[in-house]
């Protein structure tokens, strides 16, 4: 425990710059949206307290807005407002609206009727009654609503990092993808503390007696504005180009950290979720993103991969891996699987992924079309000489490869095939293999090296610069440890990659990451 805390403190101390920035962004996001929500919600609440017939519909709509899952709401915002602060603030303010409108309405309608009547009878005008009687008396209830909204906002603002609006979510979600507890806590603890702190401060405000409340009501807007300004302090710097990296990429040695240390790349960076990153780049919200080199979206959005000339991204060459006993049991197998060796390069794989992901063709059809086009297709022989069990992980590329192997085995041998596709992630797939549930599945050298073998840093440094070395290392180690054989690579490398819009890259003459760095440093 003590040690855990120690390292957490160390992590926080080491990342104090980022922590401060993220915390300020978090506070800023929370309060900008809160101010706008108050500016909208308060008048709306007053309005429906006057026109009670409208209270049902208005509160209903605000209620529905609040039930939309946060991620979905952020997603809806992107086509409308792009990425970054704008959509995040709008999403946050939509969540904050309900408690503010509702409490304003409840507070105003709850003001003692005889007090209101006395105000009218003494000759106060409608506005005088509103500002001198109704609002002050409803203020405790309204403040309670603002308090609820603030706490909600602190929580939801963690999700702002999905769409590059910053905040403590960068640490939280980065930590989750990297399985780094300290990083998660470094984001989660300050977020929780902020929620508790604001809740406490606002509760104090609520408890103030009515007299002091008048002063407080005057100070509050000013205070909120100051807090809201926090958001602009950290983002005051800009740059020629903007990069959007996933939280995971941000924290990896073979990611942003390597970019900084090996390339010395300094680029204005925002953190964004994988789900919206490609689109954001396409829509010129971002210029450089961290993606996977064979992702179908590369093609769909006209992006191009920058060459990793200093080889910081480990190679992720794909190859079928097969149990040794299966190779003995099915002597024809190795030869058949190797028919695909070297046949699929990056752009071919990207195109195949594009067909399934964007043209929504079935993996079977994409596989067959490819084999026919490359004169590898043979009709099924209907063999019954044993059954080969093929597995795959749960994404498109793996389905396509599994289908190709199925067709090839059925066409070239007398074996039958059983497929067990969709085996979750690497761990599930590999466990199925070692437990003799499947005979083969397509794997990537980088995954083998880092996730399965969990090689030492020394070994990693020794081999990752070269694809052959990496391949040979995993091949030998798998044979030694698991009696599993890596067959010949298919040819493509589905690795981390930096990418840009092709048009922009051409214009700027950027082909490699080093080019990018040079461009950024040029005045």
């Amino acid at each position, binding site marked *: 425990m003590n040690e855990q805390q120690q390292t957490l403190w160390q992590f926080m101390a080491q990342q104090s710059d980022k922590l401060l920035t993220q915390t300020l962004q978090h506070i800023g996001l929370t309060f900008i949206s809160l101010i706008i929500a108050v500016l909208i919600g308060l008048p709306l609440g007053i309005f429906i307290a006057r026109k009670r017939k409208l209270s049902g519909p208005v509160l209903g709509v605000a209620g529905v807005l609040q039930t939309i899952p946060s991620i979905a709401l952020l997603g809806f915002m992107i086509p409308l407002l792009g990425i970054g602060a704008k959509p995040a603030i709008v999403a946050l303010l939509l969540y904050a609206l309900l408690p503010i409108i509702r409490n304003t309405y409840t507070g105003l309608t709850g003001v003692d009727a005889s007090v209101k009547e006395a105000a009218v009878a003494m*000759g106060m005008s409608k506005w005088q009654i509103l500002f001198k009687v109704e609002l002050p008396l409803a203020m405790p209830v309204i403040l309670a609503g603002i308090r609820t909204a603030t706490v909600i906002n602190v929580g939801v603002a963690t999700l702002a990092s999905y769409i590059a609006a910053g905040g403590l979510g960068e640490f939280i979600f980065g930590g989750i993808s990297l399985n780094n507890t300290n990083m998660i806590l470094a984001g989660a603890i300050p977020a929780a503390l902020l929620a508790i702190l604001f809740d406490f401060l606002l509760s104090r405000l609520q408890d103030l007696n009515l007299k002091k409340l008048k002063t407080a009501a005057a100070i509050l807007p000013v205070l909120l504005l100051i807090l809201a300004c926090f958001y602009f302090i950290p983002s005051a710097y800009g740059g020629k180009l903007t990069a959007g990296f996933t939280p995971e990429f941000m924290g990896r040695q073979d990611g942003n950290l390597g970019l900084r240390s090996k390339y010395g790349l300094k680029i204005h960076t925002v953190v964004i979720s994988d789900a919206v990153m490609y689109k954001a780049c396409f829509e010129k919200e971002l210029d450089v993103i961290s993606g996977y080199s064979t992702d179908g979206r590369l093609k769909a959005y006209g992006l191009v991969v920058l060459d990793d000339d200093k080889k910081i991204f480990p190679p992720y060459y794909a190859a079928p891996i097969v149990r040794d006993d299966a190779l003995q049991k099915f002597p024809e197998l190795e030869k058949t699987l190797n028919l695909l060796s070297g046949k699929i390069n990056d752009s071919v794989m990207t195109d195949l992924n594009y067909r399934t992901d964007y043209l929504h063709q079935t993996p079977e059809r994409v596989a067959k079309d490819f084999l026919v086009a490359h004169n590898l297709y043979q009709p099924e022989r209907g063999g019954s000489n044993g059954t080969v069990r093929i597995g795959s992980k749960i994404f498109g590329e793996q389905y396509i490869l599994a289908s190709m192997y199925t067709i090839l085995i059925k066409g070239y041998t007398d074996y039958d095939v059983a497929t067990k596709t969709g085996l979750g992630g690497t761990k599930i797939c590999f466990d199925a293999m070692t437990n003799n549930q499947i005979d083969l599945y397509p794997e990537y050298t980088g995954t083998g090296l880092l996730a399965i073998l969990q090689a030492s840093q020394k070994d990693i440094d020794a081999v990752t610069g070269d694809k052959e070395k990496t391949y040979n290392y995993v091949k030998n180690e798998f044979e030694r440890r698991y009696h599993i054989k890596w067959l010949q690579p298919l040819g493509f490398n589905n690795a981390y990659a930096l990418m840009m819009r092709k048009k922009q890259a051409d214009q700027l003459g950027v082909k490699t990451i080093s080019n990018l760095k040079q461009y950024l440093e040029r005045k």
Partner: protein
Amino acid sequence: MIKIDHLSKSFGKIKAVDAISFEVAEGENLILLGTSGCGKTTTLKMINRLIDPTGGKVFINGENIMDQSPELLRRGIGYVLQNNGLFPHYTVAENIAIVPQLLNWDKKQIERRVSELLEKLHLDKKYLSVYPNELSGGQQQRVGLARALVADPPVLLMDEPFGALDNVTRSKIQAEFKALDELKRKTIVMVTHDVQEAFELGDRICLMDKGKIVQIGTPAELLFNPANAFVKDFLKEQRLQLEFKALRLNDIWKYLPSQTPKQGSINLHGDVSFWSAIESFKFTSTEHLHIKHHKKDEYRSAGFEELMAAFYQYKKQQPHE
């Protein structure tokens, strides 16, 4: 001063007030009396436009109130609510100063007027900076009254101002109310459903039932000349006390023993109610009251027995009910 002309108000099908007409003279205290739901409050609120009539007119000083801006109209009319309607977020001083603030008085003037009123209403200065919830019901009601009186409006409307108080507090405040010099000059319309209160405080009483006026007149007229069985029935309870309250000493003047005035010994005027005359025996040690007719230069003197005798003689002269 106030003229009500065929005033009506319907809430949907309910005729809360049904074409009533009456007038209130300057300086008069008119009581709207009646059972619950008979339209008293509705009538009162139509005078300062808290409720807009569905028919008829109201004139104050000959001017139709619908021709004035409601805010300005209301600033010239004091209004006291049953449960005071004080602003809980204002101190006593701020509550009283609401109308002067609206009228843009200067600070000094407001301060002077507020402390003057506090004194008249027997409220300690220490309450100035206190919030209404820290006051007793009686004190709150006094502040409510002060708030209505502060700008010295010629007209005062009061909706059961003493309704929420216990009996002891109520009679104490009622007594103060009667003695308050500020109120003597005012034209007051006051709502109550307490007959005793009506007789104690009213110059005239307007008895209402189901939105209509049953009888309007002085307490004595209602008591000794009831328009119908409803009026008689309404005044049935504690009739003797009502009669005491309805009669002025002037009314029984001829039955009282005459007397030549002694210097400085006058302790009552003829316009005082019989009830107050008997009560004064409770508070003063004198055996005899020296009374001056409040219009003529005549004097009478009476002890308790002589007073009661005069009362019964007067009663005998009244037409039999």
